[in-house]
């Protein structure tokens, strides 16, 4: 192995410095290039969980290329992210997969869900490495599918744990989420398990469709049971839900998986109302992310570049696809090869794989049938004076070791697949 992950991060940081002096980040003719495919939604309802990831990958790749590329197996490679917009459509996902594979992509990154389901059989057959942001896509048959950066929705347990420790008087909760398996129901099962593990009673769980335009009746129905905690499991409609809470004068605790576009939420409610909302996705200029144990190259610089180049586009996935890219680079260096199966073997060979928020462990066999997702520390984030700020890191793996039986039972109650 030539370059360690730590060296890579140093190299990337050097690259940023070089880029700052005006070094061209353009790929030059004759240079070896390795393509990393992103078969993701860039249009449609799911675009916020696709396109910002491509933007983030472009920033990371530009920084690596500006530093002179990355050395893999004695060769220097430039990184080229190549995007394909499948619009969260299974037909287009296959076309995207085939296009990227024939374009010699060394890995294909995807959001997850049915679009992964449509291509994974091919990926197994073609020996293609695929990454997903949804570990629930992993089955015993999907050995080429990994979830190295996001452990959705397992990390939601950390937010509930923190809430229970810091607000012990909150003893009842209601949950609202979308009625889909990939995001909503998986997330609801984790929240239900996390609440039960801490002795918090779940009074009601509302699964709503994607066609809801007025959330006031849903919120009114849930608040009728007078919960101490209002929980939004992975829900693309957090903004109208919080707006409805605000309009109905809710005063309890709010916890959510994501809070994308929180500026919009503040504009529609107030800074005071959103103060203290608990969720799981930090801004990357957070002081807590600027330490050595954070394994993402220059989080603050990444945040600044993103805000400058793509204002208003930041979402939860903005750093997750780039994190997968960084993980791929690290594994390819360890493998000394860009061949997908060599890189996969190098990834899996590391019992303590690097993770954005510190090293983690391969996990999943007891729930999904295969140890192909990385779980580690995950931040608990709260709204503080109009900004998302990390209050603490908690260990997802430790929670799973302790509470897996509860989680499995909750998942099975909702009809979700477990092993």
């Amino acid at each position, binding site marked *: 192995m030539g370059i360690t992950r730590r060296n890579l991060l140093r190299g990337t940081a050097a690259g940023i410095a070089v880029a700052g002096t005006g070094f061209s980040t353009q790929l030059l003719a004759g240079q070896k290039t390795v393509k990393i495919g992103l078969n993701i939604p860039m*249009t*449609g309802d799911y*675009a916020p969980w696709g396109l910002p990831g491509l933007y983030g990958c472009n920033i990371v790749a530009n920084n690596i290329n500006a530093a002179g590329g990355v050395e893999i197996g004695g060769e220097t490679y430039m990184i080229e992210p190549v995007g394909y*917009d499948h*619009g969260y459509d*299974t*037909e287009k996902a*296959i*076309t*995207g997969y*085939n*296009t990227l594979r*024939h374009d010699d992509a060394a890995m294909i990154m995807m959001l997850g*869900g*049915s679009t992964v*389901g*449509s*291509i*994974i*059989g*091919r990926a197994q*057959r*073609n020996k293609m490495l695929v990454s997903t942001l949804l570990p629930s896509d992993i*089955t015993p*048959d*999907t050995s080429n599918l990994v979830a190295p950066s996001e452990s959705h929705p397992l990390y939601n347990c950390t937010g509930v744990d923190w809430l229970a420790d810091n607000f012990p008087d909150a003893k009842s909760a209601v949950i609202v989420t979308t*009625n*889909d*398996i*990939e995001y909503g*129901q998986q997330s609801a099962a984790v929240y239900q398990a996390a609440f039960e593990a801490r002795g918090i009673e779940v009074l009601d769980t509302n699964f709503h469709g994607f066609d809801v335009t007025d959330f006031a009746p849903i919120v009114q129905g849930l608040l009728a049971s007078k919960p101490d905690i209002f929980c939004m499991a992975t829900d693309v409609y957090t903004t109208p839900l919080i707006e409805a809470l605000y309009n109905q004068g809710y005063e309890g605790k709010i916890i959510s998986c994501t809070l994308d576009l929180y500026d919009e939420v503040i504009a529609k409610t107030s800074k005071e109302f959103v103060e203290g909302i608990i969720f799981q996705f930090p801004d990357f200029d957070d002081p807590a992310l600027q330490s050595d144990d954070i394994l993402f190259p220059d989080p603050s610089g990444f945040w600044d570049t993103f805000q400058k180049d793509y204002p208003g586009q930041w979402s939860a996935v903005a750093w997750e696809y780039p994190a997968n890219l960084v993980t791929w680079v690290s594994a390819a260096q360890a493998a000394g090869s860009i061949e997908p199966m060599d890189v996969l073997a190098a990834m899996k060979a590391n019992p303590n794989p690097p993770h954005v928020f510190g090293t983690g462990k391969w996990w999943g066999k007891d729930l999904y049938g295969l140890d192909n997702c990385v779980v580690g520390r995950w931040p608990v984030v709260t709204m503080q004076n109009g900004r998302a700020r990390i209050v603490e890191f908690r260990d997802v793996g430790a929670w799973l070791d302790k509470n897996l039986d509860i989680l499995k039972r909750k998942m099975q109650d*909702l*009809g*979700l697949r477990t092993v």
Partner: protein
Amino acid sequence: MSIKNLIICIVILAGLVALPHFLAYNFQDLLIFLAVNVLVVVSYRLVTLTGEWSLIHVVMMGVGAYASAMLSKMAGFPFWISMPIAGLTAATIAALLCFPLFRMTQFYFLIGSFAAGEAIRLVWIYFIDPFGGSSGINNLPPPELGDIDFYEPIPYFYMTLIIVTISLFILYRIEKSRVGLTLNAVHWKAPLAESVGVDTWKYRSLALIVGSFFVGIAGALKVHYLGVVTPHQFGIGVMVFVLIWVIVGGYASFVGPIIGVVVLTVFDQGLRASGIVDPAVQPAVYGAVLIASILFMPEGLEGIGKRFFSKSSGENA
């Protein structure tokens, strides 16, 4: 079929056999979906021959798709058996639905078929076991036949082409048969047909059942290439596309819907490739095409062809 038409068909088929070898990989996939969609619109036209426009056709495609997916994934049936059973399942569900649906006609039938279709889709979504809920059923096996790799688009396209061609031939023969003529009579002269002893309920049902059988086959063809079946693949949005293809192509003749689906698919890909229109607003473009078609091409694209050829033959005379 005249010798001239037969020759045209053979030339088109020969062209289709050669075509994928001249296309980029992503267009080879598209060719498969296009072939499947041709079967969807032609089978839909059979239903419309009786004058009843339903909104359940795409859901019937889903019934076939789910049947084939469940048989192959859960019971281990080979595709070659699950595919015809898919058609039969869709036809059976259609036969059961005939009893409530054909108590209605025209607009009421349209709404009734929509409601029945949504009810079926909700069953797929809410019953996670065995339908997989909103995620559907993943990792469906492709067909197996010797050493042929049906994960690859060209072999799958050839298989689809053969099945679709046979299906189109059968549908064409039905339309040109006495049954097809009766279906037309049910549409245009229902009271007269009834007065001479034609059971219009039976013929309307027959059209729905046969149309559903073939669209069920189309569903199986589609999802075994996709490798996944989900309720979202068979929503009302997809049905709207089918309506647009049929209306823009024209539904007076057998080839009209085929022209519609081919031209609009090429148009759609052209828009995508050109980048002129944001993909998010492409449905609006489709809507504009539909309105323009109704206003300026009441007979659809096939009407333009007819006028062109009749003008040419008039000039020659």
